[in-house]
């Protein structure tokens, strides 16, 4: 525990020094919201990778592979492949067209007030759900790892929340980016070390690892069974399993390109060319990381075993338990501290994107018609918003408690991003005929459909055995799949396209020439 604490204290201390440095250096609106647009390609690549390699992927995906095998690894593939969408379709036009938020691109040729108001709502929804998921994860992690230390779930949640507020309020985007870079380095190093230890356990023969993973023994309904973890079907089962998988794929490859906290990162680099290079950096880091999750996950399945994992903290603890099994308590402590640092950094990244959207999209552009009443107003509003967002998420995370399934909330955030944000973003950039009505229809239908289907799906509805109250609504689910994307993504596109076709907006069409020139050449980009 002393090791764990000292790694963590060292991380917190260095991030606070960075925050102090960033606070002194950062000047003006673009300094606060976009790190002065001075972040280099590799730095942004690490920061973007850091934003995406959340606790959900490090703890969650490794955990899923360790108990469900290949089906869990499909999450890793989706997480990596999503960046091809960002590279080909989104990063460069976004950087060339906007200043601080995704809303800049959407409002470019639309009636800005209703579009920005809706974007602000969907951004706040996405990030808040994501943030609560991370904070619940942090609290649960601490409660498990430091069980003897007297630190409770609530204290851990408050600690994460307060640190995040400090980073964001004082250090802005510059501090948040550097916190993310350091964390991405720590997490990559940690994952690599764990993977090497796993391979050493199998005498550096992949064959040994894979043949052991081909016959993992565990208990299922009191019976000892043995499964091939390299085979599909342990998690996604008929009749809906295949559709659920496709649905998950849709949410990943479109949702990631609609996540506000990922998109804002492309405004921190000097130009579109740097944005493009930074995506490739991120792909390299994320790709390596996610390939290694299969080594870690299968390693945990073989070395630790699904039975032990499920009785010692559940799937989220597979990575830390693997570290303990391979290199003792000291490595367990290091891995746990890194996982905790990961959560802290991701939460800070979410908070800055939420508060930027509130200040820039909602406060300045919706309420005050695009004019700051006095210089620096938007930064001030963003700082207050960050404080508010931090307090709200602390309160909700404490309210829902450690037992809540954090994964659902992250899933909800991704679903909204894929079904509401992504269709509208892509159509704005590439379709001349697109207009205000289309944007409003796409955003609202995507948002409402995702929330509604998740609420009537198996995450919220289900009939539990007596004494177990896992589901909020005790009834048979009305929608059979966890991942709603297969319905909501086409619905979002359909609403956006028909909204545009059913209305006419000459201004939006005449401004398309300007948009396409700016998007492709960077002319006039800030």
């Amino acid at each position, binding site marked *: 525990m002393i090791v764990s604490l000292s790694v963590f204290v060292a991380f917190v201390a260095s991030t606070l020094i960075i925050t102090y440095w960033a606070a002194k250096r950062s000047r003006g609106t673009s300094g606060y919201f976009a790190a002065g647009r001075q972040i280099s390609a590799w730095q942004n690549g690490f920061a973007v990778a850091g934003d995406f390699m959340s606790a959900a992927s490090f703890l969650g995906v490794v955990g899923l592979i360790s108990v469900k095998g290949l089906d869990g690894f499909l999450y890793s*593939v989706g997480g990596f492949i999503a960046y091809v969408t960002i590279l*080909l379709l989104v990063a460069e036009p976004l950087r060339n067209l906007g200043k601080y938020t995704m809303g800049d691109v959407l409002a470019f040729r639309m009636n800005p007030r209703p579009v920005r108001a809706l974007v602000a709502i969907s951004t706040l929804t996405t990030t808040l759900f994501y943030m609560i998921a991370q904070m619940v994860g942090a609290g649960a992690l601490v409660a498990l790892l430091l069980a003897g230390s007297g630190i409770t779930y609530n204290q851990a949640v408050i600690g994460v929340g307060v640190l995040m507020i400090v980073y964001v309020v004082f250090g802005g985007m510059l501090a948040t980016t550097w916190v993310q870079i350091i964390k991405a380095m720590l997490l990559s190093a940690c994952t690599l070390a764990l993977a090497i230890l796993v391979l050493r356990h199998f005498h550096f023969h992949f064959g040994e690892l894979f043949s*052991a993973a081909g016959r993992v023994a565990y208990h299922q309904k009191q019976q000892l069974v043995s499964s091939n973890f390299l085979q*599909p079907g342990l998690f996604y089962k008929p009749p809906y399993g295949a559709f659920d998988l496709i649905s998950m*794929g849709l949410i990943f490859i479109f949702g990631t390109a609609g996540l506000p906290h990922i998109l804002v990162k492309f405004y921190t680099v000097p130009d579109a*060319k740097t944005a493009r290079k930074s995506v490739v950096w991120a792909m390299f880091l994320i790709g390596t990381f*996610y390939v290694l999750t299969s080594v870690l996950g299968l390693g945990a399945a073989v070395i630790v075993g699904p039975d032990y994992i499920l009785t010692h903290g559940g799937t989220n603890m597979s990575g830390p338990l693997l570290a303990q099994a391979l290199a003792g308590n000291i490595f367990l402590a290091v891995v746990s501290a890194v996982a905790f640092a990961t959560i802290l950094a991701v939460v800070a990244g979410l908070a800055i994107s939420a508060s930027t959207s509130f200040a820039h999209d909602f406060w300045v552009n919706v309420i005050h018609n695009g004019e700051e009443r006095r210089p620096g107003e938007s930064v001030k509003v963003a700082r207050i918003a960050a404080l508010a967002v931090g307090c709200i998420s602390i309160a909700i995370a404490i309210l829902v408690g450690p037992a809540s399934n954090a994964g659902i909330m992250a899933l909800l955030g991704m679903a909204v991003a894929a079904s509401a944000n992504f269709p509208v973003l892509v159509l704005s950039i590439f379709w001349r005929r697109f207009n205000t009505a289309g944007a409003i229809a796409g955003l609202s239908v995507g948002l409402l459909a995702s929330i509604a289907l998740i609420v009537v799906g198996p995450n919220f509805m289900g009939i539990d055995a007596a004494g177990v109250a896992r589901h909020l609504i005790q009834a048979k689910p009305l929608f059979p799949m966890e991942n709603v994307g297969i319905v909501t993504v086409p619905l979002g596109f359909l609403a956006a396209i028909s909204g545009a076709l059913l209305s006419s907006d000459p201004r939006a069409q005449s401004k398309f020439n300007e948009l396409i020139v*700016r998007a492709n050449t960077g002319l006039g980009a800030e």
Partner: protein
Amino acid sequence: MDSTENTKPGQGAVQKDWDAIARSPEFKHLVALKKAFILPAFVIFFFYYFALPVAVGFAPGWMSARIVGGVTLGYLFALSQFLVGGIIAWLYLGASTRFDALTKDILGSQAKRSEEKK
């Protein structure tokens, strides 16, 4: 704030200028080249990616076939996605040096035109 920071070149351009650039042959050439790369790349990647959940979901038997040692076809197919994603990114980086050169030309002739107008 949207109206106060118009300091960089291009910000002062009026509708006529944007239309002129959009209709210029150099710009049309650039957009056509980009489309010729991005569209097929996206379509290939899209179908290759979705082949994985479709195969895993609908043909788990095939995907369980062992190829080398204990490694299944499904796992190799999943791993191959990382390779395909990497190749697309690498090809795109290569193609974009051409896009950047063309963009530079367009920006150059635009700057010249606005000089002449003054």
